[in-house]
């Protein structure tokens, strides 16, 4: 097992280097320009633009910039943002709490809701509950988040005036009332995201449960005279959850990547919002750093999922 993990980690290094190269190459070849925000402003004439370009290091060919960047990354230096001239890592640290507070919480809620929903609808297949949850799940993953987000804003902010739709990242939870404010401001984005997560995972759980319910070992358990409750919870659920756990683990990196659309709609200053804005502005150091961190997390959680698989399912052995 230990050797397996070590081997996988070693393979991860070239993988990440290749990913970083592709990311950097795409960014270098993309036509976006950090100076585009000046538009055609006559107050920023060509010479000045050239000077700014030079001060950002953009006058060097991109492969030279890539090598320099890679060397810096090896020293865990993610560089400076073109737009704010502050360290990229600071920007990411500033935004991570917001992303975790919204996207992370939504994911946890999604998982907590999805497993029981999926389980019940499998056990009570074709019941009213199953039909309802199926309908709900299809709505959940077929209606885009920008639509549900706007719908919630129009109902709860514009019409009813119950909830704010501008996320205040300066809010510090110190008392019950500020906790209330925090809940009020994050309830809409969390709902939007949790709806999607719940739908996906619930469908998956249901399908897995249905696959296991008619199997021989379940019949054996029932034949032993075990209560149906125990059969479902101890035998069927445990086995069905093995692939679900993998799915959930693989979804965790996405949490750190933020939710691009939802963060934008509710003005949650998270990683996703930072990423999409930086892409638009041609802020290469920020984009490259986020994507590299994201890639690292994907690689690590893939490994984690594989390892978990082995732990949960004794039939699988790595050598």
């Amino acid at each position, binding site marked *: 097992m230990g050797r397996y993990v070590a081997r996988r980690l070693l393979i991860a290094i070239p993988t990440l280097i290749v990913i970083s190269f592709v990311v950097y190459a795409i960014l270098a070849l993309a*036509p976006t320009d950090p*100076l*585009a925000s000046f538009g055609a402003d006559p107050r920023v004439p*060509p010479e000045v633009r050239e000077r700014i370009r030079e001060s950002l290091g953009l006058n060097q060919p991109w492969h030279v910039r890539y090598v320099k960047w890679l060397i810096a990354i090896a020293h865990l230096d993610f560089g400076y943002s073109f737009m704010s001239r502050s360290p990229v890592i600071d920007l990411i640290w500033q935004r991570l709490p917001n992303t975790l507070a919204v996207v992370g919480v939504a994911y946890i809620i999604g998982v907590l809701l999805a497993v029981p929903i999926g389980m019940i609808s499998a056990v009570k297949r074709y019941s009213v509950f199953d039909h309802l949850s199926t309908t709900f799940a299809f709505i959940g993953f077929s209606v885009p988040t920008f639509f549900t987000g706007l719908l919630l804003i129009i109902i709860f902010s514009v019409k009813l005036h119950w909830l704010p739709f501008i996320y205040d990242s300066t809010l510090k939870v110190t008392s019950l009332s500020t906790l209330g404010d925090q809940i009020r401001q994050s309830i809409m984005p969390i709902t939007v995201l949790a709806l999607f997560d719940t739908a996906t995972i619930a469908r998956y759980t249901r399908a897995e449960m249905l696959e296991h319910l008619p199997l021989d070992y379940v019949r054996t358990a029932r034949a032993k005279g075990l209560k149906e409750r125990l059969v479902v919870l101890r035998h069927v659920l445990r086995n069905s959850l093995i692939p679900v756990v993998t799915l959930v683990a693989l979804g965790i990196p996405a949490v750190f990547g933020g939710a691009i659309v939802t963060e934008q709609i509710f003005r949650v200053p998270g990683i996703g*919002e930072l990423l999409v*804005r930086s892409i638009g502005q041609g802020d290469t150091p920020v984009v490259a750093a986020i994507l590299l961190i994201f890639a690292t997390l994907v690689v690590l959680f893939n490994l984690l999922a594989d390892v978990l698989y082995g732990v949960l399912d004794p039939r699988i052995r790595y050598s």
Partner: protein
Amino acid sequence: MTNQWRRATAVVAAATMTLAACGQTTTPPAASGTVAPSASVAAAKRGAGDDLKILYWQAPTILNAHLATGTKDSDAARLVTEPLASYGPDAKPLANALAAEIPTVANGGVSADLTTVTWKLKQGVKWSDGSAFTADDVAFTFSLMADPKTAVSTSDAAEGVKSVVAKDANTVVVTYNAPTPNFYQWGVGTCCYILQKKQFEAFQGEKLKDAPGNLKPIGTGPYVVDTFKSGDVVTYKMNDQFRDANKPYFKTVTFKGGGDAPSAARAVFQTGDVDYAWNLQVEAGILKPMADTSTKGKLLTVYGSSVERILLNFADPSPSLGAKRGEPDTKHPFFNGPDGKTVRTALAMATDRKTVAQQIYGDGLAGKAGCNIVTGVPDYESTATADFCSKFDTAAAGKLLDDAGWKLGTDGVRAKGGIKLNIVYQTTVNAVRQKTQDIMKQNWEKAGFKVELKSVPADVFFTNTSPDGANHFWSDVEMFTNNSDPDFTNYLNGWTSKQATGSANNWNSANYNRYQNPAFDTIIDSLRTEKDPAKRASLFKQANDILILDVVIIPVVTRTQVTSGISNTLKNVVPTGWDSEMYAVQDFGK
């Protein structure tokens, strides 16, 4: 105490007077006896209000305006750092910042040969850290701007300035290399926010970009940065050291960034979550009902020099030219030849700016039909073009082309000598612009042009490196908005022959049209030296008329420079089209 009180009152009176009088800058600052609408709030106590909520759908990323990459940065910085003077709503300097009065030739502040400008600074101004603000800080800020190594985006204002010297603690002398008719070039408006020498002294040259002050500048303005999360939000506290004892009104300010313009409009008009929502670039059909039915907010607009214009290409954008494509020495097949002016005129005649202004810009809500490129300053506004622009007639445009031998083909496209009037029309991706394109296409095709529409994301469009960009202009016509300083010389310089963009200048020069007309160049040269304001006004008009009547550009609508939403409770917001929207944020009250 009494002394301080009296001085403060005098400053308030002066500020309100200049505001009310729209910058009659010769008024001595000590003049008294004004009853301005803002008097009630001006008399209110500092910090009487709670939190001013400002929403920008683009988030500020840096608070040193000299390193700004957009209005959002510069505006967020304006709450903290100030220039010597602002540009008021009438495009004239306004002494609401660090200068005690506006220097003019009449008051002796500007030398007769227009080379030196002597700025008298307000007495007793302090930085927010309590130290004294002096002329040294002003000279230091200039040195940062003039140093090419700092690579500041405001350096153009320092171009042609020989020196900025602190004569004494409260006097600054700006000397230009040559007589400069636009003698407010350095010191006024968004170019020249004064930084504290103490804070930035150790970060000169290339090191400027590493200065911690870029994220938390110390300033003389009404507010102090409390927290700044780059790309997200700035929170400010009131500056206890602010020179006006009664201002600012708000204890704190939250300057939130991000999201999109339509939801920013919703936040100010429908939910009332914010007091000020910046730049509501929303289609009039959506914005107008939202603002009209709102019980919480209203629209705040003012015109400046912003014009949505269509540029005609004088160079040949055909891909078949290879390396010569779009170079200034090529000639556009039908816009630039013996029939060039006829074809261009026909295109202008088939341009329906009225419908665009009414249907898309809400008929004065966010823009009005316009015919001049030099606009916003009444003295410079030409009337010679009105007649030309009033003729929207596709049939007459068709006849003009017919008479010149451009005959309609079976495909509905006019042609002559094997050249067809096929037009590629590019602009940025933007709902308002795509609707404008549709209207143009419809009418131009009636006159016998064939129009292919193209739209490019704004961040790709405005780059010199992109072949799909405005600079390369590898299409026949293109459309975007631009605006000018109150002095239009540098702006108009963008149509001189020397500025023709091409590979030689890395597609970086401002004359995207590649228009080359010696008569026009001469006018711009005269503008660089002409001192007489009346003659300058006439030169601006002449330059404008050439660009319009020779159909180098087709102005479509004159757009509002400020299109923001403010809550009904917010008072004393007087917008200007020539400076930052936050130029008088110290006056904002409730």
